[in-house]
């Protein structure tokens, strides 16, 4: 049975922590083990940081939409900001020698590493990122579809 919850959050650091906590709870309820819960929580945290800090630039007038859906065989989490948009196909590779010692730029890389599927959609204005974790599947087979 599909269960879906959605929340609209302020663009604050507290939202990042709340999104992470909600992801852990949703993952546990969906039956993911502790390692999977950790991975999902980290991916959600990174996505929420991007939405709050980079997308909405912590603008109190802009909201972050958090939607979490348990489809029965997967957990689908969507986070949408109201920022200027993100071209996820042209992000620097944090593993490149020139980028390895940079202090930032690893968030989306980690999201891709920890989730099975990661989708980006330009909501004009804003960016929607969808994170999908299937039950019983390794994150090593992560796929990305950029729309």
């Amino acid at each position, binding site marked *: 049975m599909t269960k879906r919850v959605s929340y609209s959050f302020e663009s604050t*650091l507290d939202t*990042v922590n709340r999104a992470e906590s909600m992801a852990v709870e949703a993952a546990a309820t969906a039956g993911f083990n502790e390692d999977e819960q*950790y991975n999902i929580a*980290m991916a959600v*945290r*990174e996505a929420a*940081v991007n939405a709050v*800090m980079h997308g909405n630039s912590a603008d109190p007038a802009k909201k972050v939409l958090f939607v979490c859906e348990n489809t029965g065989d997967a957990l689908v989490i969507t986070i949408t900001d109201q920022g200027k948009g993100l071209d996820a196909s042209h992000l620097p590779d*944090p*593993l490149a020698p020139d980028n*390895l*010692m*940079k*202090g*930032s730029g*690893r*968030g989306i*890389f*980690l999201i891709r*590493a920890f989730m099975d599927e990661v989708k980006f959609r330009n909501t004009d204005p804003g960016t929607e990122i969808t994170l999908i974790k299937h039950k019983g599947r390794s994150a090593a087979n992560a796929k990305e579809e950029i729309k």
Partner: protein
Amino acid sequence: MTMKASNRQVNGVTVVDMSGRITLGEGSVVLRESVRDLVAKGQKKILLNLGDVTYIDSSGIGELVSAFTTVRNQGGELKLLNLTKKVHDLLQITKLYTVFDIKDDETAAVGSFK
């Protein structure tokens, strides 16, 4: 969990015992200020004990990299001690495991500083 950092001196090396989460916000700031404070005081042999660090996000990883660079640029050394499996895995995924000098024995780690 609140991030905490406390320092102790062992044979000329400053061991920074850290606990909690190194994440965007307070945790990253505690790490940044701890290392900057040590470097400002001329303490350039720094061993970060991460044994009680339960979680690091990409911001925390960035702070570790910045701390490493800050100390190295001042002619010092910053090494990591007692990584949890999750932090270890995170540094492997980000290819930083080979960048940092990572130790699992404090006595040996202290003795490895030049």
